[in-house]
């Protein structure tokens, strides 16, 4: 039986998919803008953040209404809670992309540093994580979520390596300290995006299986 609640849940899914797609595009664009020092695109990302924020509020309202009026239970309840959690993570990823875009505009006025390609590589890894996380969330496919958790370790390692490299560079090149600090910020933000993508994948597991794998990232032996 297809009920009013299920129609509303479909609407919530559509909203969440829309937000996910905006955030994914924003991350893709911010990596491209950084790589090519494209300030116009960077500005578009900053301006586009409002659209993402607006969707977060809409999802929040839709979830609140469903919880208050429909008395959802079991997988419906878990889907609503999962969407609420994911929308918070997506909004934060949106903020991080806007911050990276902002830093890109600043860096575009200064000479390039040698580790931009590594940062771009790290950005692409975080994008890959987000794409995987969203696919596992919406399918939902809990096994893919475990892959996202594994990918997070790669991004963490890239972050550590890049920061070590930047610090070594700063010691030698004192005039480049300001630019280098901006680059550390970018690395940290990509790393954070990886963490948030992991959260989204974990929310997908919660929806599919009703178990909480936060901070743990495994299904069994719990």
């Amino acid at each position, binding site marked *: 039986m297809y009920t009013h609640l299920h129609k509303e849940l479909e609407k919530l899914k559509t909203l969440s998919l829309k937000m996910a797609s905006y955030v994914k595009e924003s991350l893709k664009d911010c990596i491209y803008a950084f790589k090519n020092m494209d300030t116009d695109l960077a500005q578009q990302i900053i301006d586009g953040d409002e659209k993402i924020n607006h969707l977060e509020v809409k999802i929040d309202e839709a979830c609140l209404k469903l919880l208050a009026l429909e008395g959802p239970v*079991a997988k419906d309840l878990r889907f609503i809670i999962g969407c609420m959690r994911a929308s918070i993570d997506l909004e934060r990823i949106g903020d991080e992309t806007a911050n990276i875009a902002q830093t890109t505009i600043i860096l575009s006025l200064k000479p390039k540093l040698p580790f931009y390609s590594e940062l771009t590589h790290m950005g692409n890894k975080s994008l890959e994580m987000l794409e995987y996380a969203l696919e596992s969330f919406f399918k939902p496919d809990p096994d893919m979520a475990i892959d996202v958790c594994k990918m997070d370790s790669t991004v963490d390692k890239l972050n550590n390596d890049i920061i070590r490299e930047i610090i070594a560079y700063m010691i030698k090149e004192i005039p480049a300290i300001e630019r280098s600090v901006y680059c550390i910020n970018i690395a940290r933000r990509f790393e954070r995006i990886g963490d948030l993508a992991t959260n989204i994948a974990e929310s997908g597991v919660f929806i599919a299986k009703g178990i909480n794998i936060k901070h743990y990232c495994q299904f069994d032996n719990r």
Partner: protein
Amino acid sequence: MKPYNTKIKVKNLNFFYGKKQVLFDISMDIYENQVTGLIGPSGCGKSTFLRCLNRMNDLILNTRVQGEVCLDNKNIYDPDVDVVELRRKVGMVFQKPNPFPKSIFENVAYGLRVQGIKDKELIAQRVEESLQMAALWDDVKDRLNESAMGLSGGQQQRLCIARAIAVQPEVLLMDEPASALDPIATRKIEELIFELKKNFTIVIVTHNMQQAARIADYTGFFLMGKLIEMDKTEVIFTKPNKKETEEYITGRFG
């Protein structure tokens, strides 16, 4: 390890109306001082099952029971069981409030008099205690001799609960006790159930799933005469194990 003592243990229970089997191999533990909710679509057998717990179905002609219902390890279907005593131990509250056309006092005192208690002081004391436990005392203490029929629906149902608990049962069976009441009276009954479980083991049949979610510690889901799933209520309503349960509680069933 079981979290609570088992008050009623149902083992492989089958029930027949004539040749038609309506309950199939039901096994269930009902825990002491816990509320067990029974949910399921109309005609799934949950009320029949409830009535098996104090042999109310004995009153219906041409019915047959197989299996065991053990109350404190004693099968209530054993031939030596005194059914009147059984029903004192296992009381029942029905869907529609059914007070006797007597005074409020006499409604509650009725069961005690049937038991042969003649001590007026003891009767008065039990009536007051029962009305207090049923959260009705403050409403009626100044009009105990007035007709029970003058009470509101919610008050009448609480009176029926007082009447059921006056004979000091151990288990209370409730068959949709709030379905004929408005939301405020329903809430009062639900709050009352929270209080009553301190003293009694409660089994409640309800069509209102949110009510089961609110008040039951354990919930059993019945479908076509079978117990599909029984678990802690929070598990049933957040992460049921059976597909049928999930479909029913999320409204995808049918």
